[in-house]
């Protein structure tokens, strides 16, 4: 049991922090970047690629760095710290993760290599109107004709769906010999029968309605086995990465709030003279540290090959509760300035809320954990099933 980062991991954190501080240390810069499409800075994206960060978890033979979930967590936390709008988790952990999980060697080399170089922006098209955080597809169907496949249906919201060079799409298998399982497909941005309508999300990001009308698609991986379990696993890994992004964001929200309490004066004194406020800041710290411990643990479970799905649910629940708590209190302790677009804490709250809804919120995670609560006597974080 060891919660310390090694020197390479500390170097990685310093390097990422340096890059992102230069880009977004001034929060006005983030507002400018998120104000115009594609909602992030292509130059910063290229720099992330040059540092090897966009290929961080991919195998070296596929153009990646061969790093693990701890390194991904470090980058995600730094992204959250300054609310960098570059879609690191969405492209690398989610879309890239799906390709890495089920793609053929050739597909991995092509797509993951392109992601790592910064030349291919891949987006996961998985969410469907009418479903909530399901690992399988229902509304988009895949039909086979000989060796080729076409997709029909709507995916929404697809994060970065309009900007994406390639979409990684989940679809329900239909037609001859299909058993109703979910498979994954690659769809090129210029494919026929593909309509994408992009828009802004409340946290400054971009999403799209993506419509498939007999759109040609390339089956990801070999065969038509159901990929629900693989999707569930990749979603879990992304949830853990999001937990770390949330930690970075909550950390900044708390530090910003504490600083404000020390400098803002009312009734002739600084706000930190009011115990009603400082106690609430102390509770925010408690929430943050408990969530941080859980997120770090979940990354270690992923690293050790343990039950990553349950560990991710646990991290999701803890960071969701903490994110709501800290996000709301950060605004309240600031007062009116906290709700303005020109100040940073409100954007942290917005981003924390988005993270909550992208892959499952706290109540959703709690329901899943509750369903199995009597299946074990106690939780041993150092033993099975978490140690793999």
């Amino acid at each position: 049991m060891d919660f310390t980062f090694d020197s390479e991991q500390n170097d990685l954190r310093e390097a990422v922090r340096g890059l992102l501080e230069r880009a977004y240390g001034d929060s006005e810069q983030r507002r400018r970047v998120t104000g115009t499409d594609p909602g992030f800075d292509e130059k910063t994206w290229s720099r992330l690629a040059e540092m090897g960060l966009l290929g961080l978890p991919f195998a070296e033979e596929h153009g990646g760095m061969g790093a693990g979930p701890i390194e991904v967590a470090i980058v995600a936390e730094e992204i959250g710290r300054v609310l960098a709008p570059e879609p690191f988790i969405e492209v690398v952990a989610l879309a890239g993760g799906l390709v890495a999980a089920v793609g053929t060697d050739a597909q991995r080399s092509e797509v993951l290599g392109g992601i790592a170089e910064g030349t291919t922006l891949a987006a996961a098209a998985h969410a469907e109107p009418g479903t909530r955080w399901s690992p399988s597809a229902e509304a988009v169907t895949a039909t086979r004709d000989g060796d080729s496949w076409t997709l029909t249906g709507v995916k929404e919201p697809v994060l970065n769906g309009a900007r994406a060079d390639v979409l990684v799409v989940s679809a329900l298998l239909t037609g001859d010999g299909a058993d109703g399982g979910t498979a994954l497909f690659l769809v090129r941005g210029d494919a026929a029968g593909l309509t994408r309508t992009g828009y802004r999300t409340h946290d400054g990001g971009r999403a799209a309605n993506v419509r498939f009308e007999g759109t040609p698609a390339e089956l990801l991986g070999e065969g038509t086995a159901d990929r629900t379990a693989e999707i569930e696993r990749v979603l879990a890994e992304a949830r853990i990465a999001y937990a770390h992004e949330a930690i970075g964001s909550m950390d900044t929200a708390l530090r910003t709030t504490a600083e404000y309490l020390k400098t803002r004066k009312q009734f002739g004194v600084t706000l930190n003279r009011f115990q009603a406020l400082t106690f609430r800041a102390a509770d925010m710290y408690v929430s943050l540290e408990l969530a941080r411990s859980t997120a770090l643990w979940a990354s270690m479970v992923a690293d050790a090959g343990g039950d990553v799905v349950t560990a991710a649910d646990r991290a999701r629940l803890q960071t969701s509760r903490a994110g709501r708590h800290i996000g709301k209190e950060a605004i309240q302790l600031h007062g009116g300035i906290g709700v303005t677009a020109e100040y940073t804490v409100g954007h942290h709250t917005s981003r924390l809320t988005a993270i909550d809804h992208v892959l499952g919120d706290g109540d959703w995670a709690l329901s899943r954990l509750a369903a199995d609560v009597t299946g074990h006597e106690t939780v041993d974080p150092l033993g099975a099933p978490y140690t793999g």
Partner: protein
Amino acid sequence: MRLQLSPELEAFREEMRTFFTTQVPQEIRDTVAARRHVSKDQYVQTQRILNAAGLAVPHWPVEWGGRDWTPLQRHIWREEMQLACVPEPLAFNASMIGPVIAAFGSQEQKERFLAKTANLDIWWCQGFSEPDAGSDLASLRTTAVRDGDDWVVNGQKTWTTLGQHADWIFCLVRTDPTAEKKQRGISLLVFPMDTPGVTLRPIELIDGSFEVNEVFFEDVRVPAENLIGEENRGWDYAKFLLGNERVGIARVGSTKRLLAQAKAYAQEVTVGGRPLAEDPRMAGRIAEVENELLALELTALRVAAHSADGKPHPASSVLKLRGSELQQAATELVADIAGPLSLSSFADDGSEVPDWARVATPEYLNYRKVSIYGGSNEVQRTIIAGTILGL
């Protein structure tokens, strides 16, 4: 970053688990498991078994019975002890006065007290709080005035836990009423509870239990050699004592065990023919407490792993605050699972209500204390806001 325990620590955990579950009498562990009050004899018997195996005071200096363990080993030791329903070594001895005497006492005091303290041959109690000195401990008013070779003690202490069993008391007294800062005029005295002039009055608590007492001092003569450390430095020793066991105070193992029991009770109680545990709201409530407890345990492990250089990790202040809240949440959960059965608190043989349901609400009420003692949760928030957030 590494999840697994090293093979050595895994073996250590197994060794602790085996010892606690095989060497401590089942009848004592059953008392703890049933959440009944542990008797004086049971405490003494257990601590002597642990002490004989070197497991009573592992955190003390090696020459006085300590084991030179890492913080992580101590964490595992404590966790396994709690999971196995073993009564922990008496805190007043093992965590409070023992380490203070070992650190600040004279050689003569160490030889006189430490071995007997580790073995619970002396049962210590704590004379800190007073009627007008609770969270504001430094405003204590019990005085000790020098008279020849003695100190003469007058005043009153309160909340003295298990004082009814105690042989000796360690007591904060004001020795310099003229000191510029009230913290500077305090000393630490120790003396037998049967010294003339010492009177103990029990305080009944809302659960009907007698755990705490008032202690009155009327011209109690204490030999000068019973002053621990230096005169007027008592406040430093008190801070050392209170800050000593911030990791252990989370009581994760105990709460984990209680939560496991709560699950079993929720499967035993039925609603409309179905186990209460299958009710989604109840299952969700249990799962949420369980996840909060996991977060606390991981934070305790993080703190333990980072305290190796002697400086406590900043997050350690979270442990008392959240640890007490979760102990309370678990006892409340059990009381709510018992529901109407919990009204039969003091039922005798004629009742069909199971024992666990009878003790549920008294324990829930009793556990309101845990967010008050050892530095109330408001004091903890003040510490977090001040020393961590700089507010």
